[in-house]
């Protein structure tokens, strides 16, 4: 479900690219330090975005260092140094990944993911001890999704609500602020976006496996990905464009302190770009590389 909130690389300023990589690498390294090497693979672009947003909104202290990496032991990379806020974000990443994997396993995922879930057990318990509030939010979100799936929910907004609320509440837990404010609404729509774009991207898989998919429930008649996207183009366009536009509108209401142009690239350009990519692709998208 992750990897959909990303910048548009060709529009990214050089300094923003370095800032983005430094957060990504900083979180990855911190996960390695706090939870061991294995969970480093769970680092996502989405948590990188969330970290940038949280740091920016709190105007939190950011310190950089130059370090090498297992993936590239020769070159030194600029990374963000760990601090207590980044610790919490790294924990949030582990918690999110754990619950996502658990959800997949309940859905009948293969042996690979079951093994991964077992391996994440210990890191998850450590992260849980650090951020019990976020764990409760994520757990509630996934439980909510499961209930709606079992009931065969046909409303797109309703189906996306638990995940949207999850991201909103997680952001509020990390940053604070009004439950009705622009940050909360931005994160609500981003959560909704992630859920919907993932569901649309997974449609072929879900149609074959018979797993719940809100778009299949809502529109039915699936033959193949292209036919489905073409037949329902106006409705799908509205659903995704309205979610993205609401996220952009709420983003425009915020005041920024650190990473405005980078965050703007992601929210103004990245989301729409991802929608176009999914619409244009005849198969599930590959993992992005920034």
């Amino acid at each position, binding site marked *: 479900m992750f990897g959909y909130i990303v910048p548009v690389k060709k529009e990214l300023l050089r300094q923003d690219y370095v800032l983005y990589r430094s957060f990504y690498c900083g979180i990855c390294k911190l996960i390695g330090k706090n939870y061991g090497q294995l969970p480093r693979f769970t680092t996502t672009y989405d948590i990188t975005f969330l970290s940038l947003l949280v740091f920016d909104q709190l105007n939190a202290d950011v310190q950089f260092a130059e370090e090498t990496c297992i993936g590239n032991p020769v070159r030194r990379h600029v990374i963000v140094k760990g601090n207590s806020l980044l610790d919490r974000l790294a924990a949030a990443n582990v918690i999110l990944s754990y619950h996502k994997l658990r959800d997949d396993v309940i859905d009948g995922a293969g042996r690979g993911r079951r093994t991964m879930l077992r391996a994440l057990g210990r890191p998850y318990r450590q992260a849980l001890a650090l951020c019990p509030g976020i764990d409760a939010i994520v757990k509630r979100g996934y439980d909510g999704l499961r209930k709606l799936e079992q009931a065969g929910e046909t409303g797109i907004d309703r189906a996306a609500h638990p995940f949207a609320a999850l991201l909103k509440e997680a952001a509020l837990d990390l940053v604070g602020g009004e439950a009705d404010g622009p940050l909360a609404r931005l994160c609500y729509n981003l959560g909704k976006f992630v859920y919907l774009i993932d569901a649309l991207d997974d449609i072929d898989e879900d149609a074959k496996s018979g797993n719940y998919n809100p778009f299949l429930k809502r529109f039915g008649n699936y033959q193949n990905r292209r036919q489905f996207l073409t037949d329902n183009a106006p409705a799908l366009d*509205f659903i*995704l464009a309205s979610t*993205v536009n609401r996220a952009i509108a709420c983003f425009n209401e915020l005041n920024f302190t650190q990473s405005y142009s980078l965050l703007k690239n992601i929210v103004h350009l990245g989301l729409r770009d991802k929608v176009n990519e999914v619409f244009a692709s005849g198969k599930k998208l590959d993992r992005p590389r920034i």
Partner: protein
Amino acid sequence: MKDPYAILGLDRESPPELLRARYEELRGIYSEGRFAPGDAGNEAARNLSELEEAWVTISERIAAKERTGDGSDLGYIDMLIRDGRYDEAQYKLDALSDRSAEWHYLQSIIYYKREWLSESKVQLETAVSLDPGNGRYRAALDKLNLVIGNPNTNADALNDGIRGQSQQFYEEPPRQAGNTLSNCCLAYCLTSLCCDCVRCCG
């Protein structure tokens, strides 16, 4: 934000005529007071802009009430929505069995405020089909389709429109802030014009 009714020294149960009379009375007092020297003048100017802002909210509510029939359930629900009390408004809507075009319109606003835009659109479409001549319903549906649901809308021009200033979807008269400012400018221009005239004549 302060309770707009408290600024008038009244409460939300007061009849519209009384509210209007008090607003006009206070506006007269503050408008004159603005020209007093020193802090007293500043204070009056501040009071005036506060009063104008309060009046926008109150007059909207009065208009909403008149639109849906004085004191009717839908008028009350409209007020709840304007106050941001969506759960209460939803509860009241659910309890109504007569689902008119206005009912669907109000339901669409609650969905919009909850960021459920697909559901909001369905309700607006129903409102338009039940009352095709209503300009408010059609304007809201057009905005939803052409601006908020349009993947090519200019991203920089989008604004929240949920809590005040610049509403995108929820029909509302233009906000007073701009008007207050232009009123002040107008007053300044007129005053300066008078001074010039006096100088010329003298």
